[in-house]
């Protein structure tokens, strides 16, 4: 029976492997984005004058010593709560914000010294709806940005046509941007980021405001990008953890401006959630008999009778302990037949919650600071 369990775990790891392989490149792929010890401290304007008048002039640390690489052809997820530093990091990579310390390179070009070169190979789709001209049509907006990216008139028209097809916006091309739905505005932002087919895409919550069908199509599109020739590299920030797990080869967890962990979704789940819940469907014993047999094996066991007459049993165990073996042996000895056995490990949400819990206890004040910075960054001085 132990063999059966090990093969269950192994088969799950194996089933993760092709999925991860389809999302990302080999481990030896060279970094497309390299972030080295990046710290971003937002200076306070007129700090000396504010201190003189005893006003609050404390600086805000939005990113603290952030380091990681995103490999070429990889979909890399960046998850964290509001104010964690995701948007600041994205803007640092996109050359829109300069780091206070540290270095970011995109395909070998430094984001401060070679910013024009970096901008030429990076497409950014932000979550900011205001970044378009609301009185221009969808087509006029994209045409303007296409020309700034250096596309000729003909090439721009062809590319815009392709993107409208891809994002199902063709019928809305002559509609003013301000008249588009929030979801379509979001699609426009991603379409603009792809105008010059950049090798690196920074997507800030790309499926936010999309309906489930459109969101699924967007995810499929993002997956296709990294399978293209040459493959694109995608840095994706999202609050939708299911989406991150589905799309990303690797994920970084950011909290309070610090990278707390980097790994594949499976690695993060495995290293931070060592417990899993087990659900068995049984035939044969009564509810009471099952509870009695399993009570000695798993103190937290819950037993219920399903509408189809089967008995459903739930308990938790440490991954790899002998509790499931013991439960199955005890049930077998009691004459029960196990119809199905499912286990469920923690999700990225559990991992995130764990870090956020630690951050809330440890550096709650730091988070408030970062949120204040990101509010400022997104136009808080209105």
């Amino acid at each position: 029976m132990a063999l059966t369990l090990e093969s269950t775990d192994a088969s799950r790891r194996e089933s993760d492997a092709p999925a991860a392989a389809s999302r990302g490149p080999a481990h030896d792929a060279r970094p497309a984005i390299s972030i080295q010890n990046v710290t971003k401290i937002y200076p306070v304007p007129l700090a000396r004058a504010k201190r003189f008048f005893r006003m609050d002039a404390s600086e805000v640390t939005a990113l603290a010593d952030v380091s990681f690489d995103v490999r070429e052809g990889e979909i890399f997820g960046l998850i964290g709560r509001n104010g964690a530093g995701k948007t600041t990091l994205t803007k640092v990579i996109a050359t829109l914000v300069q780091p206070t310390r540290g270095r970011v390179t995109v395909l070998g070009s430094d984001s401060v010294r070679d910013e024009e070169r970096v901008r030429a190979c990076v497409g950014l789709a932000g979550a900011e709806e205001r970044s378009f001209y609301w009185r221009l049509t969808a087509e006029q907006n994209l045409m303007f940005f296409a020309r700034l990216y250096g596309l000729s008139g003909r090439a721009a028209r062809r590319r815009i046509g392709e993107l409208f097809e891809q994002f199902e916006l063709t019928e809305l091309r002559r509609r003013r941007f301000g008249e588009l739905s929030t979801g379509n505005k979001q699609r426009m932002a991603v379409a603009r980021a792809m105008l010059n087919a950049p090798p690196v895409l920074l997507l800030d919550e790309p499926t936010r405001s999309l309906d489930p069908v459109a969101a699924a199509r967007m995810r499929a599109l993002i997956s296709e990008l990294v399978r293209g020739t040459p493959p694109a590299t995608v840095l994706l920030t999202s609050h939708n953890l299911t989406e991150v797990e589905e799309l990303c080869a690797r994920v970084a967890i950011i909290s309070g401006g610090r990278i707390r962990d980097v790994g594949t979704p499976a690695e993060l789940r495995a290293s931070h959630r060592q417990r899993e819940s087990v659900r068995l469907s049984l035939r044969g014993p009564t509810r009471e008999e099952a509870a009695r047999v399993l009570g000695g094996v798993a103190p937290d066991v819950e037993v219920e009778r399903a509408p189809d007459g089967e008995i459903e049993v739930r308990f938790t165990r440490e991954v790899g302990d002998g509790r499931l073996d013991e439960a199955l042996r005890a049930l077998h000895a009691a004459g029960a037949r196990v119809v199905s056995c499912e286990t469920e490990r923690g999700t990225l949400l559990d991992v995130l919650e764990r870090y956020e819990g630690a951050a809330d206890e440890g550096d709650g004040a730091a988070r408030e600071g970062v949120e204040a910075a990101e509010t400022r960054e997104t136009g808080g001085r209105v």
Partner: protein
Amino acid sequence: MSQRLQLPARVWAFVVRDFQLAFSYRLEFFLRILSILFITTTLFFISQIFASGFDTPFEQWRNPFLAWITAVPFLNYFMTGFSSLAEAIRSEQRQGTLEGVLMTPINLPTLIVAASAWDFVLATFHSFLYLFFAWALFGVDFRGNFLLAMLFLVVTTLVLASIGIISASFAMVFKRGDPLALIVGTGSALFSGVFFPSQLLSTAGGSVFGLISYLLPTTHGIDGIRRVLIQGHGLSEVREPLVTLVVYLAVLLPFSLWVFARAVRRAKREGSLIQY
């Protein structure tokens, strides 16, 4: 597209965009034409007060309507040079589009030229309308070297544009509260001799007013254009205002580009590009 062709293509992209935006407010476009007609007509009727028995030692002001209609459109042009970039930056910040534009591989000099391009197209059209209405409706006839007048127009506009770039740097960093807008923007109409001879400032207002008037490049620009178009002066007679303007340009243009690059870097450091 080759690098050489990218500058005109990008400038053209801005012009097309701004035309499309302006065209989406059609009524404003036609009301502006109407307002130019009204201003020209008003200036003409005010000038009729002095039509009989007006004697003045200021040669350029013997026909006040001619003096005004020479200065107003050119001042309009100079002020476009001064304010268009700061206005473009503020407008992009208000709309939230500045980051979108700065995300593209566009360099700063291109942005400066391109963002102001439509305003110059519009200012050229409006200035032409002033002169056209004055010629067609009120019989104004300019005589002089138009190429020389054009040289004054270009040099003065470039000087004002340099100050405008510094003004845009204020907009980039401080968002609002630009002292240059007060001094150059509103001060030019008062101190540059647009509506009355600038010499009156020192005689009636004292040497400080005279000094302010002398320091403003618009004073030299308007004086030069009037000397050419009203008095019919040639290059040798307008050397002084022209050299003054060229000196201003040689100092201010590189300085303003340096200041603007620093302002953009500072806004990126502070993460305040889209704030307004």
